[in-house]
């Protein structure tokens, strides 16, 4: 591993997306590479810790230094040249942020469109196109003051009308914007003056601002949308650091630098236009070919496939970034039935006894799995919030379960599941402790499940393993049947609101709705104060862990490689790839 910049870096964004959307998303996309799921990113390998700053409220306006002047923006000390070529496994479907949710699209359009607000290095919200904002005391009105003098790539002016146009477009059912589901609480957007917009919510919804940080709420050029109509997804026009240049279907997408760009992201040092001429996203589906192309320099940035990480370590031509700020979480969840009424938590036997669930939690050695099967590409996580999501607090560890097979055995004994003399499977009233572990049929996933099976069998479970197609797994999880099963699952999201969302689906933890827990997470979704929100989430997580309603295991770590000629490339909040500080040295 060679030197790398101890800052934050931007482009595991694409991958972070892979885990962002609900379990279905993760299942369908991620299967191949559990390790590639979810990746936010700090550079642990480089000793890059997020800078410790004072806790800032979400509404904290961007610091003054993040507001470059036009004069600063034009000072470009380095010579602008070269191309950054990012290798990836597939092509985008559309570059219209309001028409797609595919991570391969997001990875590209997020460079073309800037949002109003975005995450800073410490996962607090900072202003991008919004200079500052105010939230009314009742949490119903968000008033954004916009930056002045910003133009879309087509030369038209960015202003309050464009913001209103964008949000009206997202909410218009005709648009079919997938991201509309994240801002259903938005009632209307009104233009107060050319540089002020006010958004009115139907009900207080604290995740609103955090949700706006995703690239799906990028502000589009109304003139370009008008001009291109349905073809806007092939001719995207935003205000971002990179302008769309060319898309050769199935081959590559070429963006060119926006020479007028002013960068307001606090973690980007270069406050002006990008320092590289072109940013290219090259489609190379085969991993071996990706690696060969990376070696020849044909591509110079690559999400390194987990099995190839070791090959690149010690290679002087390659800088390796470990992305530890992840938005994904892997866990075990138990078979549940829907509660009678609004609240409740009904686990199927034998998991209806909390001691049996706790025994599973104590009986699984997650550290061993991370070290062996996952080859170190995961971070042990004791709670349900991913490491790269706001309000994540490592202090949750003290309420989590540490591997302790003796304690597990003791709990099972107390629950009446005892070992018959000479037997290896526990029994209760003549019934063996037989359970089935479900997961989807990806190689890594299956290996992990096998180790868990083995570990639990050692404390007296009789675990059968069943792996299936993701489609079948989803279908079977959603329908009640009589087997006593638990499953190995992943979830991903970028906002702590996931603690409510993940208990609102049709299976497993999605049916965990005890009143105590639900009231806390609902309250947290209405409180605007960031610290208070985090406190409520922490309390909620304590309850979930006390109940052993799920067994959190780890957040995945991804690895990104950049060739040595790409100087200044880095990984940003939640694993996004940051190209704006990068230069190409020939």
């Amino acid at each position, binding site marked *: 591993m060679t030197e790398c910049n101890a800052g934050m870096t931007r482009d595991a964004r694409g991958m972070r997306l892979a885990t962002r959307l609900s379990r279905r*998303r993760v299942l369908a996309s991620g299967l191949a590479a559990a390790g590639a799921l979810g990746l936010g990113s700090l550079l642990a390998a480089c000793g890059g810790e997020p800078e410790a700053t004072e806790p800032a409220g979400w509404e904290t306006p961007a610091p003054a230094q993040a507001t470059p002047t036009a004069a600063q923006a034009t000072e470009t000390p380095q010579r602008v040249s070269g191309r950054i070529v990012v290798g990836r496994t597939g092509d985008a479907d559309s570059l219209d942020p309001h028409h797609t949710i595919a991570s391969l699209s997001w990875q590209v359009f997020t460079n073309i469109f800037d949002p109003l607000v975005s995450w800073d290095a410490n996962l607090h919200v900072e202003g991008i196109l919004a200079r500052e904002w105010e939230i009314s005391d009742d949490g119903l009105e968000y008033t954004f003051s916009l930056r002045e003098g910003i133009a879309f790539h087509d030369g038209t002016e960015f202003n309050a009308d464009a913001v209103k146009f964008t949000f009206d477009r997202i909410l218009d059912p005709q648009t079919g914007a*997938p991201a509309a589901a994240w801002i259903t609480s938005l009632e209307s957007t009104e233009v107060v003056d050319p540089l002020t917009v006010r958004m009115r919510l139907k009900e207080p919804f604290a995740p609103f601002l955090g949700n706006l940080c995703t690239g799906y709420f990028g502000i589009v050029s109304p003139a370009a949308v008008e001009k291109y109509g349905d073809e806007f997804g092939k001719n995207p026009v935003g205000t971002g650091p990179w302008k769309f240049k060319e898309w050769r279907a199935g081959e590559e997408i070429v963006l060119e630098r926006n020479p007028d760009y002013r960068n307001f992201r606090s973690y980007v040092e270069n406050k002006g236009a990008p320092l590289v001429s072109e940013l290219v996203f090259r489609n190379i589906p085969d991993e071996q070919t990706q690696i*060969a192309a990376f070696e020849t320099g044909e591509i110079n940035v690559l999400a390194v496939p987990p099995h190839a990480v070791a090959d690149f370590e010690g290679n002087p031509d390659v800088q390796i970034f470990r992305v530890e700020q992840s938005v994904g979480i892997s866990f075990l969840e138990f078979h549940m039935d829907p509660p009678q009424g609004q609240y409740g938590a009904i686990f199927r036997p034998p998991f209806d006894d909390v001691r049996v669930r706790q025994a599973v939690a104590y009986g699984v050695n997650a550290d061993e799995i991370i070290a062996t099967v996952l080859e170190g590409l995961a971070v042990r996580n004791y709670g349900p919030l991913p490491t790269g999501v706001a309000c994540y607090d490592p202090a949750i560890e003290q309420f989590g379960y540490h591997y302790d097979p003796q304690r597990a055995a003791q709990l099972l004994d107390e629950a009446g599941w005892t070992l018959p003399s000479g037997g290896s499977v526990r029994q209760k009233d003549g019934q063996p402790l037989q359970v089935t572990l479900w997961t989807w049929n990806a190689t890594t996933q299956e290996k992990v499940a096998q180790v868990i099976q083995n570990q639990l069998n050692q404390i007296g479970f009789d675990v059968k393993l069943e792996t299936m197609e993701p*489609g079948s797994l989803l279908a079977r999880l959603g329908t009640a049947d009589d087997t006593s099963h638990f499953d190995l699952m992943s979830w991903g999201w970028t906002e702590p609101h996931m603690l409510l969302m993940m208990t609102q*689906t049709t299976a497993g933890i999605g049916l965990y709705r005890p009143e105590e827990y639900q009231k806390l997470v609902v309250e947290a979704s209405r409180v605007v104060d960031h610290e208070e929100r985090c406190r409520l989430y922490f309390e909620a997580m304590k309850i979930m862990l006390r109940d052993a309603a799920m067994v959190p295991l780890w957040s995945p770590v991804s690895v990104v490689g950049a060739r040595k000629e790409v100087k200044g490339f880095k990984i940003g909040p939640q694993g996004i790839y940051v190209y704006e500080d990068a230069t190409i040295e020939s």
Partner: protein
Amino acid sequence: MRQYLLKRLVSAILVIFGVSLLVFTMVRLVPGDPIDIMFANQPRPTPEQRAALRHQLGLDLPIHRQYLHFLGRALQGDLGRSFRTKQPVTSEIVTRLPNTVKLTVASLSVAVLFGVGAGMVAAMFKGSWIDAATMVIAILGVSLPGFWLGLMLILLFAVQLGWFPVSGAATWRHLVLPAVTLGVLTSGILARMTRSSLLEELSRDYVRTARAKGLRESAVIARHALRNALIPVVTIVGLQLGQLLSGAFIIEAVFAYPGVGLLAVSALQARDFPLIQGIVLFVAVIYVVVNLVVDLLYCLIDPRVSYS
């Protein structure tokens, strides 16, 4: 001739019809609700959205009516829209087709050059070490896994020597490695066919006559024997042409060459059913048409062949 043509056309249509039925059922047998799969990357649709979408896609109809719908639209060239890109399947295929045609022409040229050449050399030096060596290489060509050969060529000519790029299709240099890979794989079978066919011709009376006239051996082969020897080779070339035109799935994926084959691979990865359906149907049509054309071409190459 006309009757033969008619017979072939009818059977071609039956084959395509069969394929369409097969693909249609196959896609519907895959576990999981297509709506779920469509929304695999997206927030869960509401029940109303689901119902609307089901109706829009015709999934609420009984299966035989769904098939008739599909067939009716396919006949008009409408293969539906890709789940992923929302673009018409036909246009997705047509955009990639030029790349695949280029690759096909290039790799077939390589195959004919290598294959026929090697076959001729082997036949001329029958029994010698040259013959043995050529045939060993030909067998290797037939039996090497394409992705492996592709990767080896990448490692040698792109990574080590740096002569050609690894992936893409921007310039003619991008075409070389995939075309050579495909060409070599195809040339093995052509070499073996050319050799045996040429040897057979060389043992015929007209060749003895030609030699007796005092013609040089090269003239005997080039002007007399080869023309006749190539007839079975043309059949093989035709078959290979069909295969290549339908997109060399694995090779295109290895070289990230944006043709129909790569489109198919990404469609499979994304479970983009309309696209998969469309490509399989397209491939079947290409196959059937190319074979038909090759059969008809026989009479041009060899007037002895008649279609009665």
